[in-house]
């Protein structure tokens, strides 16, 4: 993980240098994102989220939080530190236009899918995040997000090591167990 971080930091520094050059299109500037987050909205990198079709207002909030170090992950903090407000908005809009991530080829173990569905309903995930987990406005798209990233993130919300923008997810995850989080992550990543 440390090695990955170093590589990503290097990528970040490279992209910063190039972003200073004027007249680059958002597509050209976004090439640096694809190295980790995948070129077509779908991440192939462990613990790194797919960005495709993410809600723009949510993406904007996250990019802002990275720039302000309200959310700490060194490569992203470096990547965004010289971004203007306008840059943040452009990147948020850009990722929202990428194709949405595809479900994995395996349809998922029926018993585990059933368990995850029941948990998602009991916890009303399908309320704010929509019945199809497409999200809305400041509430992110979850459908077919990477399982490892969902698992990690829900645990971070649970122990409040990842501070949400408004604290809602810390409240929601407080009494959801690690086992239940794993079941939710499996279900949402395999959602069809």
């Amino acid at each position, binding site marked *: 993980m440390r090695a990955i971080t170093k590589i990503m930091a290097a990528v970040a520094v490279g992209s910063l240098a190039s972003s200073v050059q004027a007249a680059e299109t958002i597509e050209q500037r976004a090439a640096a994102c694809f190295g980790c987050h995948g070129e077509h909205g779908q991440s192939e990198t462990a613990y790194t989220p797919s960005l495709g079709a993410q809600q723009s*207002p949510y993406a*904007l*909030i996250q990019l*802002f*939080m990275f720039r*302000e170090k*309200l959310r700490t992950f060194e490569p992203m903090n470096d990547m965004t530190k010289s971004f203007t*407000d306008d840059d*943040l*908005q452009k990147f948020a809009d850009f990722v929202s236009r990428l194709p949405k991530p595809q479900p994995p080829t395996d349809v998922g173990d029926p018993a585990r899918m059933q368990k995850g569905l029941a*948990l998602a*309903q*009991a*916890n*009303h995930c*399908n*309320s*704010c995040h*929509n*019945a199809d987990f497409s999200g*809305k*406005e*400041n*509430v992110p798209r979850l459908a077919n997000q990477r399982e490892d990233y969902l698992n990690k993130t829900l645990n971070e919300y649970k122990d*409040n090591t990842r*501070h*949400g*923008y*408004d*604290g*809602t997810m*810390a*409240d*929601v*995850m*407080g*009494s*959801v167990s690690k086992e239940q989080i794993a079941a939710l992550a499996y279900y949402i990543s395999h959602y069809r």
Partner: protein
Amino acid sequence: MRISSSASRSLLLAGAFIGVLSYGAAAQTASPPAAAPAAAPALPPGSPLIGRPDNEAAQKLAPVAAPPIAAAPDKLPMDKLKVPAGFHLEVYAAGMPNARSLALGDKGTVFVGSRTVDKVYAIINKDGKREVKVIASGLYRPNGVAFKNGTLYIAELSKISKIDNIEDHLDNPPKPTVIYDNLPKDEAHGWKFIAIGPDNKLYIPVGQPGNNVLHDKDHGQIRRINLDGSGAEVVALGVRNSVGFDWNPQTKQLYFTDNGRDWLSEDVPNDELNRVTKVGEDFGAPYCYQGNIPDPEFGWGHSCSEFTPPVALMGPHAASLGMRFYTGKMFPASFKDQIIVARHGSWNRTHKFGGDVVVVHLNKDGTVKNIEPIVTGFLQDNKYVGRPVDVMQLKDGSMLISDDWNGAVYRLSYGKSKVAAQ
């Protein structure tokens, strides 16, 4: 028996409140709703989804988050915000992401807290110009600010700190020093408005840790401490989530706004405006809301008559936040010693309500006569173009209004002196 007795009480109160809600027909409903469906199991106590009915209309509602970026001064919704004839609204300062509570320094500095970012801002008047500076950062949900005798007090989610002689150190302020941290750490209703009373004590709300929950003795209250952090004492109980209070300049009684619970129905409960007449008074949450609605779950075994009813109903899910008594001379005489309240606006309602600043007119005995809008238009086509959080009077009698949606502070003035000193 229960239902009929509470219904007659609600009629009685509805009578008492006639004229209080002179607009917003839906807000006038005071009859108890049908019991909400039982909450789904497994929801943690802090979950905003507690009590959410399982239907399509409810599924469309979610807490609204402000955009993280402050609007550029030329993008502020000034053409949409309306004030009564004779009043004037202008931009006082912009570019402060998530601008929330306001406090005024002795030398005219305006301090601004925030909730979703980590900063406290100062709007500094210097050589006839206004300038915004970050005077503290790296704080956790520093929503509350208060000022007394040169010292700035800051309320984070679970601690109170201070910076002495702040106005002499605006260019290089020292880090805040913690004076009190014996506070719960819950995210839900954990951010704090603070103010210093006529008794020279600092008042701190501790909200209930969720939408509608039973809790321990350290939540659901307003407490006060000495300015050195000592002598904590509970002043009011049954407080769900108060984000604004002030003292009646005539009676010195504490008045506070309190946000009503979510998911009971579209039209009730209303937010409350409460008056504390004795230390330790209980205002009902989570057993009774708006003085006449027993909670369908926790109201069993209780009666609303056990609790102090509100002096005014402030509208359903309206998020009535910052409030101050108007003691200036600039506004018309009818504003003297009346309460100006910022209503942040609802999320838990299909047709959003609030998103305005209102004046609450009082009778001589301190009860409420009526409520009138004074700044409207933050809500356009059921969407926010701004959300007022706090109000604060300047020395010249004009009122500042913070807007966390746009990261701006506006100045409301009346009569000829239209523009604040640049």
